[in-house]
């Protein structure tokens, strides 16, 4: 399941719906990314590439599902202006055992960070720079 939207979402309600649907899974992991108010930031703007975003996330979900035997996976990612403290995105994974649910969620996050076409701009007009560590994080998933 994936949703790319400008509207806010309720991470708790999404987690509950996801968990209720993931019958038999046993282990559910979620990640929520929240806008940090560093250096007086008050608004974060997220640009995305409509069409490619959905295709890229769908491919990442398929790969994570196959690789970690996930019974279900969810990605919600917002675009547009976001206030400090608002959730930017969330990921949830369900699996029979906790190690796979954790690995699936980390894999999804690592790929979303660097392979889904989103770009963050701080309210001063500065584009957030990609971090080397985010590119490096992908290396551990190479076979």
């Amino acid at each position, binding site marked *: 399941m994936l949703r790319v939207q400008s509207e806010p979402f309720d991470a708790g309600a999404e987690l509950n719906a996801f968990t209720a649907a993931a019958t038999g899974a046993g282990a559910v992991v979620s990640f929520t990314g929240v806008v940090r108010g560093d250096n007086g930031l008050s608004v974060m703007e997220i640009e995305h*590439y409509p069409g*490619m975003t959905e295709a890229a996330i769908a491919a990442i979900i398929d790969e994570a599902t196959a690789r970690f035997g996930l019974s279900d996976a969810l990605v919600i990612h917002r675009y547009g202006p976001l206030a400090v403290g608002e959730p930017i995105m969330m990921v949830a994974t369900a699996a029979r055992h906790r190690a796979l649910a954790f690995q699936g969620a980390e894999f999804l996050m690592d790929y979303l960070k660097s*392979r889904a*076409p989103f*770009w963050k701009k701080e309210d001063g007009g500065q584009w957030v720079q*990609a971090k080397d560590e985010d590119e490096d994080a992908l290396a551990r998933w190479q076979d």
Partner: protein
Amino acid sequence: MLTVLYFAWVRERIGLPREKVTTDAATVADLVAELSARDEAHALAFADLKSLRVAVDQKLTSFDAPLAGAREVAFFPPMTGG
């Protein structure tokens, strides 16, 4: 006829989110050379290819990718989602 899309600071430097381009460029790199020759804004946006990423028909690829049959090419900085 190719649709060329720009995102984030690439879009800001070029001053357009998208443009239609008629080209015989064989590869992405050839297209970049053509676009860079147009004006200073394009030249500036494409000055450092290492800081750019490219997608052809919404799939990430490399600058030596062929353009035969392509309908949409997008240029943008490294992604910062999540």
